[in-house]
């Protein structure tokens, strides 16, 4: 394997929550208040993944007091403690920027109630890569 890829994998999270664009998620984000740390939730729709490897980020959009708010999280940051999926949406594109032009009920996505149709955070996951790397290591 490419050495850079291998070194990156060492710094990446070994397991990632399974989520993708179109999902409604809660992002558990660690914030520091003085000496204490606590978890802050940011709930919204995942509208995009960006980058690859350790620099992969994802964008979550929500409406706060009638105003659209978007936050970008680094997927492999230790600050992003967890991402829980509240609902899955059926989408036809990777970047859901069209939601920015929509208001009210139109921002809803079709809920995906059935079994998974396609691999979810496969695009966003380091998981499969990690597996591959351990396999490769054992072969060596």
């Amino acid at each position, binding site marked *: 394997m490419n*050495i*850079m890829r291998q*070194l*990156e994998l*060492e*710094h990446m999270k070994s397991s990632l929550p399974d989520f993708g664009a179109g999902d409604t998620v809660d992002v558990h984000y*660690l914030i*520091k208040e003085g000496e204490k740390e606590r978890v802050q939730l940011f709930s919204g729709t995942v509208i995009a993944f960006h980058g690859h*490897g*350790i*620099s992969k980020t994802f964008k979550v959009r929500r409406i706060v007091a009638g105003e659209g708010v978007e936050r970008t999280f*680094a997927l*492999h*940051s*230790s*600050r992003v403690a967890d991402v829980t999926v509240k609902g899955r949406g059926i989408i036809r594109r990777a970047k859901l920027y069209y939601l920015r032009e929509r208001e009210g009920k139109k921002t809803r996505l079709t809920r995906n109630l059935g079994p998974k149709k396609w691999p979810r955070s496969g695009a966003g996951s380091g998981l499969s890569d990690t597996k591959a790397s351990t396999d490769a290591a054992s072969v060596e």
Partner: protein
Amino acid sequence: MTGRNTLGILGKKLGMSQVFLDDGTCVPVTIVQAGPCPVMQVKMVNAAEHPEGHRKASINKGKKSGKHDRARAADGYYAVQVGFDERAARLCSKAELGHAKKSGLDSGLRFIREFRLDKAPTQVPGDSLTVSVFEGISHVDVTGTTKGRGWTGVIKRWNFATQDHTHGNSKVTRRAGGIGRQYNTSHGVPKGKKMGGQYGVEQVTIQKLEVVKTDAERNLLYIRGAVPGHANGYLVITPTVKNEREMSEKPGMAVSNAAAKAMIAKGR
């Protein structure tokens, strides 16, 4: 190379990535394969200072080996010559192979440099420099060859301002403009006038780059920020010449660096 006479290491830029500190700070890093660098030769002011067994230089021109040794001449300065990155023996010239053989190597090395020293080096040929030379060193200087950009105009090469695209200007937006003088034309164009030309492929030293992490096991250096040149380009890395005084005057900086490093060492 750099102003201060000190040991450094030779390396190869592997590429850029990022690491997260425990407090979530994302640090951009360049990962460098640093050494191990076999010592190929030591240079001494006086010939007598050479370690036993290295006081002779061979001059046997194709004759029986060992028969025509002469005393090694004085080098006049102290230095350690080190190499990095093996070159397959079949690609080496005989001279290269012969030189490498003296330090117990089977094949030549691609990248060979000297580190000038103030005192007689303790290393002998056959020793090896590793990233351990950077123990306790927080900042380094990195020398490399920049990426080639070919023949480049003044806008890119010297950061000249472009001319107007509007206000009646037509066709001339990326030219240098005037280069001479209106009066006293006998002086012509000033010497050293910045113009277009070859840009890149030049030796550049970036000073005072923070060492984020060292991996002694695999001879890796994680250096904060960018270093000159493309991936797989060769680098010379030395402890920084930027004075420590400057850093001790800003104690917060040193502390935060130390804290960051402690976090990384602990966390990962």
